[in-house]
Structure formats: C-alpha cells, structure tokens
C-alpha cells in the first residue's frame, strides 16, 4: 500500500482532502520538509515562517537554513526543535 493510502487509512480521511493541505515532515536533527506552503513570511537561522491561507506555519530550531525553496515547497536543514501553526 502506498504512503498516502496508508496515511488516509490511519487518519480516516479522503486522499484529495489530505493533498489539498500543506504537508510538513520533520526529521529529528536533520531538517524539515514543507510541501504546499503559500509563501515565506520570515527568515532567520532560528525561525522560518510560512503562510498558508490565514495561518502561519512556524519552524523553530537551531542553525536553520533554507536549502531549497520553490513556490510551494521548502527544504530546511539544521536542528529543528518545534513546528507550530498560528492562527
């Protein structure tokens, strides 16, 4: 079974609904992958903020660096500590 199908099964939701929201993957001590963001709001080596509709996705950590950034995706390296969503 594919990764998304597994997630849908676990979260009891439809795959289209899941894909329409931002997906954030965090790898401890390695970095964070943010897919489906709506743009970047703030940038520093301890905090990177992305916008999504009226919400703000905030990645906090140490030595954070945006390794790769496109219109919708971002790959962050460093030591992430927390991911929070502010409304």
């Amino acid at each position, binding site marked *: 079974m594919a990764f998304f199908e597994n997630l849908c099964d676990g979260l009891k939701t439809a795959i289209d609904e899941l894909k329409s929201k931002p997906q954030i993957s965090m790898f401890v001590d390695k970095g964070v992958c943010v897919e489906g963001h709506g*743009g970047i709001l703030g*940038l520093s*080596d301890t905090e990177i903020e992305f916008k999504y509709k009226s919400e703000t996705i905030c990645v906090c950590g140490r030595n954070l*660096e*945006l*390794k790769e*950034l496109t219109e919708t995706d971002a790959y962050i390296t460093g030591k992430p500590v927390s991911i929070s969503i502010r409304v």
Partner: protein
Amino acid sequence: MKDKITVYGLNLNRIPDAITRRCVKMYKVCKKDRKLSFYADSANINKIKQYLDNGYEYEIRPTGIKLLLEKIFKRIGLLIGFSLTFIGLIIINSFVLKVEITGGDSFSRQKIEKMLDDKNICAFVKKSDVDCNELKKLVYTELDMSTKVDVRIVGNTLKIRFDEEQALPEIIGFSNKDIISTADAVITRIVCINGTPQVKVGQAVKKGDVLIAAYTLIGDEQVACNAAGEVYGTVYNYERIVATGTVIESRKTGKTETFRHISFKKTDIEDKCSFEKYEKKVNFIYISDILPIYIIENVYCETVDKSVEVDAELQSKLLVKDVLDKIKIKMSEGNEIERYWTIQKKVDNYIIIDVYYQIEQMIAEAT
C-alpha cells in the same frame, strides 16, 4: 550552473516569496542581519534581476566553472602564457630530445652511435621520423651477435637496449701439433713449457724442422700433449743495395707563385700552379681574435732536377747505414744486430753492395 545573489536592505523577508512566485528555485537561502544571500540557476538570473531592480541593492557573483573562467579571462597574460606552454609542450613532445644506448660494450655502442649518425637520428629529430621496427632491424644487422634488441621511444628519449651473446668459452683440447722452425737458424735458446725438445743449443736447423714435439715421456711411454714454448736462434739475412756515382737533386730556380685564401679552418688547398715541379710552403695567418678566420698562404717555389756527381765510396757508406737503420726498425723489440759485414762489387758506374747481418730472434712459439 548557479550564481550567488546577495541582497542588502531592511525588508528582506518578502524577497524569497516574490522570487519563488516567478517560478525560480532558490538554494541555500540565508539571512543574516541586513543581508540575504541565496543561489539560483543562471538561466533564471534575468527574472531575479527584473524583480530586484525595483529598488533593491544587490550583487550577483558567478560560481563554479563560470567564476573560474571569469577569473582566467581577467588575467589574459596568464592565459596566453598557459596556452603557449601547452603548445610548447605539444611541440616538444613530438621530438626526440635524447638518445640512450645501453647494453653491450663500448665498441658496440660506438658502432650504433655511428649508425645513428649516418641515418641522421640524433637529438631534436621528429618522433614520426623514427621507425622503431626499422631501427631494430638495423641494430640487428649492425651487431651480428646481438640476440635481444629493444628499441622504443619513452617520453622524449629514444632508448636502444641490446644484450650481446656471451662468447662460448673455448674448450682447449690436444692439438698434437709440434712446434716447428719458421726460419733457417742456429739454436741459441730453448724455453720448453710443454712437450719434448728435439734440438739442442748450437744445432743448425732449417725452416720447417720440428723443434719441440707434442709428446711427453712417462717412463718409456710417449704421452700426447700440447707443445708449448719458445725457441730462439741466430738467423742470417742479407740485403742488396746499388750505389751510383751520380744522384738527382731537386734545385730551386728562384721563381715563386703565391696564392692566398680565406678560410675558417686550417685546411690544405691545392692551387693551379703553372710550374711543372715545385716545392709548396703553406702559411696560416690568424687575422681575427673574435672570429676564427685564417688566411691560407700557399707559396710555390719552382724546382728543377739536376744530376750531381758524388763520391761512390761515401755514397755506399751512407747507403749501408740507411739499410742497417731500416733493418733495426723492422726487427721486433729486444732484438739487436749481433754482427754485420758487406761485400762490394764495382760494375761500370755502379757499386753493388750485399749487406749480411746476424741477429738472434724467436724462430718458433706456441702457447
């Protein structure tokens, strides 16, 4: 290829958002104080410039090969020097700079060097002009005994290596040859190393007589062996000379002709002299301290032959002395004329002189 973009200003947070909206991928985005730096593909630089030109202070620097090329083109002298060195190396690489001959003895090596000179193969010859296989064949033919020849070009060196066949050791067997006399003589000394002497001191022997036989006696039995030793004897020889009352003398007439040439070498140059008989005198005059230039002065003195009456007795004495000197030169070292005598006969204007002489010499030898 990627370029590094650095943007300076206060409100820099909106830049990544604005640039990514133009479908530009950003790499290594880093913000510190009032500076935002990131990398982007060179193909997208125009899009980034278009946005940043709206009031941002920025700097674009190429990276990787582009940066290297930019640095190189800034130093055109270095580029030209490098190019010339590269071309020089290519040119030099197409020449043989050294010829190395190894193996064999010095005589063989000299032979090969001479052969290479004849074929015009020396330093600074083109590699393409040297056919290693042909050269290998030539070395084979030049050195008959060479068994292993290796000719190849390594870098700029033409290497010729050959191993000569070692001569087989001579196996000494019994030749059973007697030592025989090479001249009519009276034996004076016998040095017998091997074999049995067949003659005694004072005995007269003829050419071809056996002096030392190739056997030795063990009891009464004759056992074959190699004859070795030296036998000396007194040998009598004679030389005949004829003395005349007149001699032809060459005398100068006083006429001279002089020819001068300029040359770089001290060489003998023949001129078209009008005299039938002449004496030639050559003078080399060195005219420059800087250049080795010589004036070669050839002076031709005309001579004529005249017959002159001389004392026959005196003439004969001189001739005998000459003959004895010539015999001494001919004789091997250590031998001396023990005795000599002359017999003279006068016939018309001539005196026939027979010079007899006695010497002790080696008349047979074998080792």
